């Protein structure tokens, strides 16, 4: 990271950088004593990132990432395949699948399974999208659809890790942590990385794990903070009965004074994290009730999203995502679970579509009408795609996990609008045109945030670890406006 001049380096970033070894710690403590005024605790103004100034002009200031957990089928959402429909029920040609890794269909008879719902043409460019997603269809001129995304992983957990951290094995920092580490947090009274989770009702879907928003080897203050969708957004947010805000503030102040003293002595980034988190928690006691109080929202806005305050729905979370964005939160990730349709595809997928369609589109519309879409990146994606072959060994027909083709979309600052990028083969088995992968997606996101993905690295276990991995990634220039 030293290629960037850093005239405003913070004490924490500085320590974080030099304290990689014992020598570094010693140096940091020395400087700490000699230059106390230089590294005095920063005034309350969020945190400054390590990349400063930015190598590239910033197109977007924040990211709202909509994760459709479980892996939505592209054949029932964004990738129409008439040839697959024509071959419905026939054997999948072996030329497609020979020697390929499959998840639960390994060794099974492979049968073509056509799209289960009709597609319709939407927008100026007559983009074909499933009739299950009419609202997203109505904003298709504002989004960029990628039909040629691929991923490395074929099972949920590694695929989620890969999508979030660029590595299948748990332990790397997630993208929200990387971005807050690099750019700093704009919000001093809210976390820079917020996660909210909703689930389709009535089933027990594939689990997701907090390691998906972990800070990995970065200081843990960069990890995602999960707000609850129902009830209090944060547990135990209010002070106990007779404790006033002033008393609470005095307590936090005293604890942090002690922590600072110790931090000055041992220079451990985790103490800095603890100090920051105590301060942040105290601020959040005031900021979170204000954030989640939707009384100030126009009735038309609530109708646009299709939510009622306190319903704990994905739609409510989309509205909260906009409110978090307005308040300077850098990375907002919403999960909506239960897209893992090995079975009951025809019965369950339309329900997930209905739960997310209007709200996803409303988020685009709302950001746009407020002039925020130009500096926000919105991403809608699962962790992988699904097979064009049917799966029948888990009950009524569904589709298996698939990593060679998946559909997703992006919208916002600097992204081409009303555009379809890439294509899959006739049966939708593999991406064939403008093939891109998750590393490329991360590279593109960082590029839009003003970060050079290939220069944004942190020394870890002897390697220059990057979000975009070591295999090489490219910004997807074709989707940039």
């Amino acid at each position, binding site marked *: 990271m030293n290629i960037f001049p850093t005239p405003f380096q913070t004490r924490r970033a500085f320590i974080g950088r030099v304290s990689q070894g014992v020598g570094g710690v010693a140096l940091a403590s020395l400087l700490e004593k000699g230059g106390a005024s230089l590294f005095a605790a920063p*005034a309350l103004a*969020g945190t400054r990132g390590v990349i400063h100034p*930015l190598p590239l002009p910033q197109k977007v200031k924040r990211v709202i990432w909509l994760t459709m957990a479980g892996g939505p089928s592209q054949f029932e959402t964004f990738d129409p395949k008439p040839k697959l429909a024509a071959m419905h029920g026939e054997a999948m040609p072996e030329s497609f699948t020979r020697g390929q890794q499959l998840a639960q269909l390994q060794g099974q008879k492979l049968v073509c399974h056509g799209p289960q719902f009709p597609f319709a043409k939407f927008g100026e460019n007559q983009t074909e999208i499933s009739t299950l997603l009419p609202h997203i269809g109505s904003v298709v001129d504002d989004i960029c659809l990628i039909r040629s995304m691929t991923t490395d992983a074929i099972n949920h957990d590694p695929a989620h890790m890969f999508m979030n951290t660029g590595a299948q094995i748990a332990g790397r920092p997630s993208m929200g942590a990387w971005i807050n580490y690099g750019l700093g947090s704009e*919000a001093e*009274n809210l976390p820079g990385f917020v996660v909210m989770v909703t689930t389709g009702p009535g089933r027990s879907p594939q689990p997701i794990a907090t390691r998906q928003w972990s800070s990995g080897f970065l200081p843990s203050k960069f990890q995602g903070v999960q707000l609850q969708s129902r009830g209090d957004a944060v547990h135990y947010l209010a002070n106990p009965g007779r404790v006033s805000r002033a008393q609470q503030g005095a307590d936090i102040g005293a604890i942090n004074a002690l922590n600072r003293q110790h931090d000055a002595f041992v220079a451990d980034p985790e103490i800095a994290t603890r100090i920051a988190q105590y301060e942040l928690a105290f601020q959040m006691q005031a900021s979170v009730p204000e954030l989640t109080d939707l009384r100030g929202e126009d009735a038309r806005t609530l109708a646009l999203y299709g939510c009622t305050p306190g319903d704990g729905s994905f739609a409510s979370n989309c509205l909260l995502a906009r409110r978090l964005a307005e308040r300077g939160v850098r990375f907002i990730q919403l999960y909506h679970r239960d897209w893992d349709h090995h079975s009951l595809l025809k019965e369950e997928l339309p329900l997930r579509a209905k739960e997310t369609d209007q709200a996803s589109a409303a988020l685009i519309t709302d950001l746009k009408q*407020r002039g925020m879409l130009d500096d926000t990146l919105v991403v809608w994606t699962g962790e992988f795609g699904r097979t064009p072959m049917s799966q029948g060994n888990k009950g009524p027909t569904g589709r298996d996990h698939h990593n060679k083709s998946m559909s997703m979309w992006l919208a916002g600052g600097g992204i081409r609008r009303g555009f379809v990028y890439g294509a899959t083969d006739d049966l939708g088995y593999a991406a064939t045109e403008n093939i891109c992968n998750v590393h490329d997606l991360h590279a593109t996101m960082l590029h839009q945030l003003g970060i050079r993905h290939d220069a944004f690295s942190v020394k870890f276990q002897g390697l220059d670890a990057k979000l975009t991995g070591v295999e090489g990634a490219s910004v997807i220039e074709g989707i940039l406006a």
Partner: protein
Amino acid sequence: MTSWLSRIFSVARFVRSGNASPSARRPSPLSRVGRQGVAFLAIAVSSARAEDTFFAKRVTPILEQKCVVCHGAEKQKGKLRLDSFAHLMRGGEGGPAVTAGDPKGSELFVRVTLHPEDEDFMPADSKPPLTPDEVKVLELWIAAGASEVIALAAIKGAPALAAPKAAVLPLAPDWRARAPQIAQLEKALGIRLVPRSMVATDGLVLRTASSPGRCDDTTLAKLAPVADLIVEAELARTKITDAGLAVVGTFVNLRVLDLTRTAVTSTGLNDLLALKNLETLNLTATAVDDSGVAALRQMASIKQTWVFETKAGGADNPTAAAKK
């Protein structure tokens, strides 16, 4: 995308490519021997001056950029140097590099036109290959006799040279000279003044999102020392009023202004008419109406205004009004 953004963006791509022009690091293509040769020949054949030859103007830049890293004064892979006409004609361990009049019989041309996967393809090791235009230039030059002195104009049909990149237009003065002041203001006012990019003349972004409640008209007034550096002001949800807009009107290089959910009114907007570079203005959820917005939309520089949740824009309150 607004024009200035796209311009910055193209600059950024230029910066991103890193090593701008290898020629900056390389010695002159024409060695002393080469120059003497040119001078001598220039007298002999009374041909074009060295600077106006096809070789100097068109061939040399290609060799410099794509070849001399490995075939020059420092390295001579295959015992070949391409950093002067004399060296080029001498060839390498595989024999002559150029057969005058016969591109397909010239190693120089053949090697750069192989399949990129071919192990003999040049430039080797995944270095940037020649562009089709550059290949064409070499082909024409060899076909015309591979002469060092043939005039630039004597070879017809060479692809036009790309226009030189436009100089970077500064959006604001270089902020670095005022770095201490900036740091001091940030600390004193609890706001952020963030450089827009690595280009120091891209100006600063005034950010208040971390705590908009701390920013009011007094805060803005204190920004006078950096008023000309601010190209983008994020004032959404701050406590500023029309009085503050009088100060914003002195941010002479301001291009993007966000006043979402502030107490500003149409009266205050008049102060913004002085901002000759203002391109984007967000007035969402403010008390402005058509009386204030109409004049602004007439400004030559304005590209987009947002008036969602205001009285401006007519009965149906169109969400965003982009200037045609």
